């Protein structure tokens, strides 16, 4: 199911700054990573999806709705977690999230129930009656996530959810986001400038740079086909290459390394056997999973 679709989406700000140019992308439900450097246009994209700013040209549809003309319907189905601090210090989390639930159009009792629910899901059930001012950064990020969840949206827009968190906090937040995407049945767009971070939890990735689409695809499509086994032996590299070639494996040499594409699980064993039969001192045997990052760097250098 396509949840977000854009057609030649362009946003030019008053001063002639182009934040998004000609962005055409179809996004499937799931956990989606929106990556790009600071100022790449991620936040602009989110604001357009929320109907906060109108695009200069092109079209955007969220659940088939136009955020410009059908703002309320879109916002009822979307939850937004901004990047910056956005919590008043002198109220309790329960009260704050309830208030925002009511502003999303929930009736009073429903808002209260949903607020405790949302806080429970982000792991703040026990602390919810404490004032937000006394919370740690990690807890504050959770409150921000809870307020985005309170009205049970179908899509969450998370702007840098791991901002300011320590490694353990990051881990916990990412796991939580992944859980929301997989178990709650809510699609999540996670904005980040850290590719390595979102890559792990996302089903698909959209990379933008300077307002342009770099690449949008499913993570599996980006990484699966490129598993390569790197074999290094301290002597007899040529013999091994020959032996592997005889086993119908395509071998490429890269310095001291032999690179063999892994077509099947069996290939791994066959290579090991070949090494053992030749009685060669094996130095290294590791699976080279293509990182998503490599795909982007290759592209970027091509641009230059």
């Amino acid at each position, binding site marked *: 199911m396509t949840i977000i679709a854009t057609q030649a989406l362009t946003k030019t700000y008053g001063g002639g700054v182009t934040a998004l140019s000609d962005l055409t992308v179809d996004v499937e439900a799931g956990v989606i990573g929106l990556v790009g450097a600071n100022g790449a246009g991620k936040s602009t994209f989110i604001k357009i999806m929320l109907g906060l700013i109108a695009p200069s040209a092109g079209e955007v549809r969220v659940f088939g709705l136009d955020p410009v003309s059908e703002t309320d319907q879109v916002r009822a189905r979307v939850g937004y977690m901004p990047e910056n601090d956005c919590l008043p210090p002198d109220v309790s989390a329960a009260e704050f999230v309830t208030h925002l639930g009511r502003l*999303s*159009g*929930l009736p009073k009792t*429903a808002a209260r129930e949903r607020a405790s629910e949302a806080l429970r899901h982000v792991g703040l059930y026990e602390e919810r009656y404490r004032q937000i001012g006394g919370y740690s950064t990690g807890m504050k990020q959770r409150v921000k996530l809870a307020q985005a969840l309170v*009205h049970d949206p179908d899509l969450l827009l998370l702007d840098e959810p791991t901002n300011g968190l320590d490694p353990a906090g990051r881990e916990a937040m990412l796991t939580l986001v992944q859980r929301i995407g997989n178990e709650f*049945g809510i699609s999540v767009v996670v904005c980040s400038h850290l590719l390595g971070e979102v890559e792990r939890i996302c089903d698909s990735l959209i990379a933008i740079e300077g307002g342009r689409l770099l690449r949008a695809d499913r993570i599996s499509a980006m990484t699966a086909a490129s598993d390569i086994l790197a074999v290094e032996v301290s002597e007899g590299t040529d013999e091994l290459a020959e032996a592997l070639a005889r086993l119908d494996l395509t071998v490429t040499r890269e310095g001291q390394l032999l690179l063999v594409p892994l077509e099947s699980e069996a290939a791994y064993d066959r290579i090991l056997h070949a090494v053992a039969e030749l009685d060669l001192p094996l130095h290294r045997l590791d699976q080279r999973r293509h990182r998503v990052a490599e795909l982007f760097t290759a592209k970027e250098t091509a641009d230059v």
Partner: protein
Amino acid sequence: MSETGVIHDIGYQRYSGARLGRPAVFGALYQHGLRAAFGLGRSAKAKIFPWLVAGIVLLVAVINAGVKAQANITLFDYYMFDDTMSWLVIFFVAIVAPELVSRDMRSGVLPLYFSRPLRAADYIGAKIAALITAVWLLLGVPQLIMFLGAAFTTKKGMSGVWDEAGRLLPGWGYSVLWAVLFASIGLLVASITGKRAFAAGGIVATFLVTAPVVGVLNIVRSETAHHLSGLVSPMTLVRGVQIWLRDGVDLGLDVGRMGPIYGIELVCLVAVCLLLLLARYRKVASL
């Protein structure tokens, strides 16, 4: 919770209940603002100032009602009550207006508001309505106490009560004028800054600076200047409108035949404040 203290993960539940529209959202924000104005649902610290001011105003009304009941001396009528309490109203607005808008700006909560079915106009509307109601309650409730005091001690039976009610209603109307004007100005000043102390100071200063100008104009030896002097300060402006509407005489302020000008200025001033607020929040709402 079960007795063994096991936490059951009942999983995520989708919400299928009602989703109300913008009028309900407006109502929720209004209610929230009105509660916040009196520090309800906030810490004890937030309750001190609004209730201190409200307490003083109430006390004055009770004393007034008591004196009238015991000695049949009217210290203030309903209009004079508002005029006398003017500085307390200003303090109240200076405390509450920043609580309503500067606080939201300071904590950065506005992006959360405006990513929901809420527009800049709704936000301002709800906030101004909450502030107007709060200021009106500040004056209207003591006026009601004065009325009750007079009504229960009247010696003319029902007709005495009716006469008193006939005086209370315009008094309430006068309080509405106060509330509308002071809420608009106060909210506009408060929306400029996110720092609560600056906002409060700014509001008091706005009223403080204009008051002496009225005095200066009254020394000038021109009849017209005397009549128009009240236009400069919001406090005398409201009084001028009251004098004009009641065709009354006030020892402190003589509006002559310039009454309509006071009325026009009041309306324009409120409209300008609201339009400026709207312009400000249109900008803020698009982040």
